[in-house]
């Protein structure tokens, strides 16, 4: 199993930390992982993205240009990464702020209205965990117990009391997923 993922959105949406939790969960489940952030002018305002690879084998390149899964959280990232999803691959996106919805027919497409849901809960910070839940519903590449361990590893101890809330948000994400194009 090798899963090559791009997560892309605005800086501040929790793109990098979502990737980190996923990567750490992979480590906990004894997988090979790599987490490669955009660290350029992007992180100084504007878009932000991270490539996460989780595999049973040694990972060749941490930088790749085609992905099994793209998790897209704004229009700029949609423009940049829609065509980098491998045929048969997966695109998950939050429809909030998306003006041009994807129309590719050769990939699986799901919406996860995470912004809306996070606003309902009243904690915008849970946004990225809701998105992560959506992804894990389609591709359960790491088991929930390891996600918990991943959360423990990647969150500072003073935030550990928030883990149940995060886990709940992941469950929420799994439940609100909306299929758009399923092969």
């Amino acid at each position, binding site marked *: 199993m090798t899963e090559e993922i791009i997560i892309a959105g605005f800086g501040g949406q929790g793109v990098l930390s979502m990737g*980190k939790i996923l*990567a*750490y969960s992979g*480590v906990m489940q004894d997988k*090979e*992982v*790599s*987490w*490669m*952030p955009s*660290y*350029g*002018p992007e992180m100084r305002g504007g878009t932000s993205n991270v490539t996460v690879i989780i595999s049973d084998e040694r*990972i*060749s*390149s*941490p*930088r*790749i*240009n*085609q992905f099994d899964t793209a998790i897209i959280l704004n229009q700029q990232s949609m423009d940049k990464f829609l065509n980098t999803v491998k045929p048969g691959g997966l695109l998950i996106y939050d429809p909030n702020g998306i003006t041009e919805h994807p129309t590719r027919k050769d990939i699986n497409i799901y919406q996860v209205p995470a912004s809306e849901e996070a606003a309902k809960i009243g904690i915008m910070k849970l946004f990225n965990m809701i998105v992560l839940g959506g992804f894990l519903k389609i591709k359960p590449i790491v088991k929930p117990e390891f996600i918990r361990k991943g959360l423990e*590893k990647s969150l500072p101890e003073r935030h550990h009391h928030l883990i149940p809330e995060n886990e709940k948000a992941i469950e929420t994400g799994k439940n609100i997923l909306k299929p758009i194009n399923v092969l």
Partner: protein
Amino acid sequence: MAKELKLMKGNEAIAESAIRAGVDGYFGYPITPQSEVLEHLMIENPVEKTGMVVLQAESETASINMVYAGAACGKKVMTSSSSPGISLMQEGLSYIAGAELPAVVVNVVRGGPGLGTIQPSQADYFQTTKGGGHGDYRLITLAPASVQEMYDFVQLAFDLAFKYRNPAIILSDGMIGQVMEKVVIDDYKPRWTDEYIAKTFPWAAVGKPASRNHNIITSLELDSAKQEQININIQKKYKVCEEKEVRYEMINCEDAEYLFVAYGSSARICQKTIELARAEGIKVGLFRPITLWPFPSKQLKEAAKNVKGILSVEMNAGQMIEDVKLATECRVKAEHFGRYGGMIPDPNEILVALKKQIM
């Protein structure tokens, strides 16, 4: 304590390794994309754990001269920076090599020339392996291709620096510096005691006992005959280093008809290209120099015997290709493919280049 598994950035791995390897001092100045080295050291505050000193100097010039002084005392000292900062250190590096002192420098390369970009690059190959500073000297150059190697090569660089009394440099780039991967980390090694240093390194300036003359550490010798002898001794040392310290890795080379030669980040990307190429039935392998100086010339010459062509893949405008051609004595077709200015080649375009330039 058993070995521990962590998820770390390459830059953090450098810093963590320095603490655990029993390094005495780090002197540095922040610059993207290597700032996490200094940041991690400041957060960990190793003076409380091992007594290691971490200091943000006023400039890169100051950093390298602090390293010069620490090294003169037989201490394990290091600095890190990125390309423009490393350029500022060249005078100091030449002095340290001239004075025959051990030191470790990390260059997390960014695109140049000039201030350039903060994105990854391998454009400092010439500077690192062919000089940079003035005079006939070499830097023992290690090129890590993973976060684990970033960690492991700190210890290795110190071992080599002390063995040859010469600066060793870890030549990384923004990609290996910024990526997070799994790392196995060791327990803390104690720093060397002053007694150990005095006993083990008779050249070190540790205070003069009555039994010997002053240790004078300098790179200045106005008597040309003496200066030539110093040079001869240094070159002898380099010959031994070239014989004994070459390191390299060969991947998928057993049946290879074509060869990529690439180091660091480029070597990782080439491994992805190999996956793509082999899926198409193209038999290509990777020769990865781990030491860029000494360059694995003999080994590459041997590996090149059975292939139809070589593509030297570098994030620069063609630098290592010169060493590839020298090593293979131009008996095999060898071409360069590169992206530069902070652009990272994608695995597909390397495959296209292989087909177009070599096949």
